[in-house]
């Protein structure tokens, strides 16, 4: 197969950041994981549909890359979205999308496998398929074209891309990728005969959804049903879940890029899943239950990872890292381990609001002390009960006090706006919180500052808020303006996400199959890199909706009713519809719900239906309690399906 490098290299002198296109990451050198092709190996091109700097650190694709390259019958390479300057140069020179590992043409692979972590990258997916020389719609592809698959969180509503992606993998990918490789490998060795045959075969793998094998019927504008066309195709596609993270200590050899990327550090995933139950958070809902990695394995992965990569920073990643039961021990060891080596900086994304975590943070960030970030998400206790982010103001203030007193100067607060039941009082509550926070800071330093970052809320499938009608552009803008005026003259600074982008995300997020043509039109009109402010244009989306005869407000700002068939109803994250609806009603009634790791199970459906259980090292609630509040959580945890890891239990 052809190495396109001689045709790529002449383009590099004319583009921004040419190193995006050369590969050469540590971990890909010959003899290590270097991809080995062969006629009996199923060849996967793993693609992150955004720039190299954003895409390379994606842990999901790095895990799959290793798993595939460890196999004797598969091979994986990687590709990212070329920036607009490079794309133009490639199209002019007729250079197709290529892998960064060996600079092989995308169309030479058997599978184009995308990660979808954000909806606004959908137009990039179409663009990359096109740049690969493959027809963008799956109906137009022949057996000579690669199979286009996708995984990642966005695939929990696969419908907007149903006409463009051949197969979706729902949930954790560690096991399913091997099963997909088996099927594709057999197809390849059989001469890649019929496309229909390989898709039918893929559809029999649990967790794999092949949209072309389902018929969608509408009743007026609403979906009436999504039905499989064959008996062996499942009516409901259930997510895949890796029961025990300990069996998957990946990536074992995290790739170290030569160019600076986001999250340029060693990342060690310490647990998957989160049951805090924040009602706006899709990631928390779809990744249940909690599966902790054994403390000892975390230590080994950190120690070996640092030694192998030469990084001086490590992030212990998860949806809420301070909740890890072994966190104290791991942190203490990390600090002792690194004494005298010049220091390693450790970051824990998503801190809880309590002095304990601030203590850890100062312990860890001896080397580089950036800002401390807390995410109260809403400005009043009332609204925080609605969204089930039960942070008590006084806890936030003592955490902030601890932070400023230990030398931090900048505190960042994250909020969402456009939440269900939100009133102007709640918006002004954000300003009040921020003012109080800076006042606390000024007791310690004149330079104390506080950044308030506000994102527009987009209701996501498989969450209790999936029925909620999103705020329109004007309403979000009005709230942002209200907030900006309220903090004028204080030391708090407001940053906000463009409400127009929030609206477009809303179209893609809860769209049905018809939204696919809208995405295609946006792409054809030049709308790539929609999550970049340089590339984004709401007008492209609204024009496309109009051209397709679809009403944007019907998709975005309309409240759904309980009896409506949601477009993703045939995809299951294990959450019972009754649980989600009940939780939505509880939200409207301003009732919180505790974390089922430490309080009795309320049967959301996941553990019970999938025979799963929480895997945690300690039954003891973290300091600050469930949700970081002082809630009484002394009730026993016997009713929760929990498996304790063998490691020592702290009390």
């Amino acid at each position, binding site marked *: 197969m052809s190495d396109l490098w001689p045709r790529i290299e002449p383009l590099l002198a004319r583009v921004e950041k040419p*190193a995006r296109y050369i590969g050469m990451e540590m971990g890909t050198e010959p003899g290590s994981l270097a991809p080995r092709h062969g006629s009996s190996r199923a060849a996967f091109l793993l693609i992150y549909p955004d720039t190299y700097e954003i895409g390379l650190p994606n842990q999901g694709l790095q895990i799959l890359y290793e798993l595939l390259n460890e196999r004797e019958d598969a091979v994986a390479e990687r590709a990212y979205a070329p920036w607009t300057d490079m794309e133009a140069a490639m199209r002019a020179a007729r250079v197709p999308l290529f892998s960064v590992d060996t600079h092989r043409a995308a169309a030479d692979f058997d599978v184009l496998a995308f990660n979808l972590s954000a909806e606004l990258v959908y137009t990039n997916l179409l663009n990359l398929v096109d740049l690969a020389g493959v027809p963008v719609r799956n109906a137009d592809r022949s057996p000579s074209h690669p199979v286009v698959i996708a995984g990642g969180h966005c695939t929990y509503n696969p419908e907007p891309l149903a006409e463009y992606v051949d197969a979706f993998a729902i949930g954790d990918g560690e096991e399913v990728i091997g099963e997909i490789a088996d099927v594709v490998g057999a197809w390849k060795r059989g001469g890649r005969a019929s496309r229909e045959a390989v898709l039918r075969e893929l559809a029999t793998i649990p967790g794999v959804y092949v949209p072309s094998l389902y018929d969608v019927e509408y009743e007026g504008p609403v979906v009436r049903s999504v039905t499989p066309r064959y008996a062996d195709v499942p009516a409901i596609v259930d997510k895949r879940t890796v029961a025990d993270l300990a069996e998957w200590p990946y990536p074992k050899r995290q790739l170290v890029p030569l160019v600076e990327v986001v999250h340029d550090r060693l990342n060690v995933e310490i647990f998957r899943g989160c049951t805090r139950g924040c009602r706006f958070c899709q990631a928390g809902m779809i990744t249940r239950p909690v599966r902790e990695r054994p403390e000892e394995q975390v230590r080994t992965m950190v120690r070996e990872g640092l030694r192998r990569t030469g*990084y001086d920073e490590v992030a212990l990643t998860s949806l809420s890292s301070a909740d890890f039961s072994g966190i104290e021990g791991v942190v203490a060891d990390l600090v002792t381990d690194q004494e005298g080596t010049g220091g390693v900086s450790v970051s824990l994304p998503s801190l809880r609001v309590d002095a304990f975590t601030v203590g850890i943070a100062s312990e860890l960030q001896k080397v580089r002390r950036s800002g401390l970030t807390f995410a109260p998400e809403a400005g009043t206790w009332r609204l925080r009960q609605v969204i089930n982010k039960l942070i008590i103001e006084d806890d936030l203030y003592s955490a902030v006090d601890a932070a400023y007193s230990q030398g931090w100067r900048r505190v960042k607060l994250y909020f969402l706006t456009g939440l269900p039941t939100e009133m102007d009082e709640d918006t002004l509550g954000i300003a009040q919180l921020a003012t109080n926070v800076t006042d606390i800071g000024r007791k310690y330093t004149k330079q104390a500052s506080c950044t308030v970052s506000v994102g527009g809320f987009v209701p996501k499938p498989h969450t209790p808020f999936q029925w909620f009608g999103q705020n329109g552009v004007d309403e979000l803008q009005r709230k942002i303006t209200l907030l900006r005026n309220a903090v004028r003259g204080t030391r708090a600074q407001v940053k906000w996400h463009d409400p127009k982008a929030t609206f477009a995300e809303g179209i893609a997020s809860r769209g049905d199959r018809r939204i696919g043509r809208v995405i295609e039109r946006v792409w054809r009109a030049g709308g790539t890199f929609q999550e970049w402010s340089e590339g984004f244009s709401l007008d492209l989306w609204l024009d496309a909706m109009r051209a397709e005869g679809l009403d944007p407000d019907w998709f975005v700002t309309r409240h759904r009713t309980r009896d409506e068939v949601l477009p993703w109803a045939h995809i299951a994250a294990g959450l019972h519809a009754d649980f989600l609806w009940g939780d939505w009603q509880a939200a409207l009634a301003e009732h919180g719900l505790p974390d089922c790791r430490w309080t009795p199970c309320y049967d959301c459906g996941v553990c019970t239906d999938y025979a799963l259980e929480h895997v945690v090292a300690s039954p003891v609630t973290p300091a600050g309690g469930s949700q970081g509040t002082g809630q009484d959580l002394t009730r026993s945890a016997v009713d929760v399906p929990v498996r304790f890891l063998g490691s020592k239990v702290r009390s």
Partner: protein
Amino acid sequence: MRGGAANPVRLRYTKLGKVRWISHRDVARALERAFRIAQLPLAFSEGFSPRPRVSFGLALSTGHESDAEYVDLVLAEPVDLDALPSRLDAGLPEGIAIVGAVALADRAPALQEAVTCVEWRVDVAHGDLTEVDPARLREQVDAALAEPVLEATRHRKGRDVIEDVRPVIRRITVCDEPSAAGLPTVVEMEMSTQPRGAKPGEVLAAIGDFTDVRALRTYQWIERDGARQEPLDADTRPRVPEACAS
């Protein structure tokens, strides 16, 4: 001296092949990671946020290759310098290789000031990447160098400025044999770096419709008192016998 003894070291390294597309900053980060992978006993600066004592020589632009790049570092304890290149190799990408390591005198002048002259070997094409006739190029070079001033467009801080690059140029030789890349025309350029240098491409574009398809830095020189020395030979400390080093 024991304990707090500083052990300054100078390394020479290459940047060849695909890796030429990474920036000078990326090279610095790759080397620093390689030092940590090899667990090199780097000395750290004093102060609130200690930094390893590493200082890089002249920047090499993204896209240029080199046989002769240098970095100075200070080690907290002596190491076997002969073994250093292979010790660092495992942590470095293909194309970046340590090709020399010497003990440096205390307080040796920094590379950025000490280096006064560099040499390049450049594959030349026209601006539209078509082939250049060596005879034509030779004529144009001779004509350009005969003038007292050679105005070049230089990209500085995001703006194009016109500057006279004639004082930078010491020698331009159009070679007779073709390059390995198959281009018929190769030039050797020798240029000053103080008070400021110029890129081969900027000089070529000032001479005519020419560009550098590939530029390889072949030498860096430290000139002092009429003599020129390779940085690995200048300011170095005589090899200390093993017995004394420990």
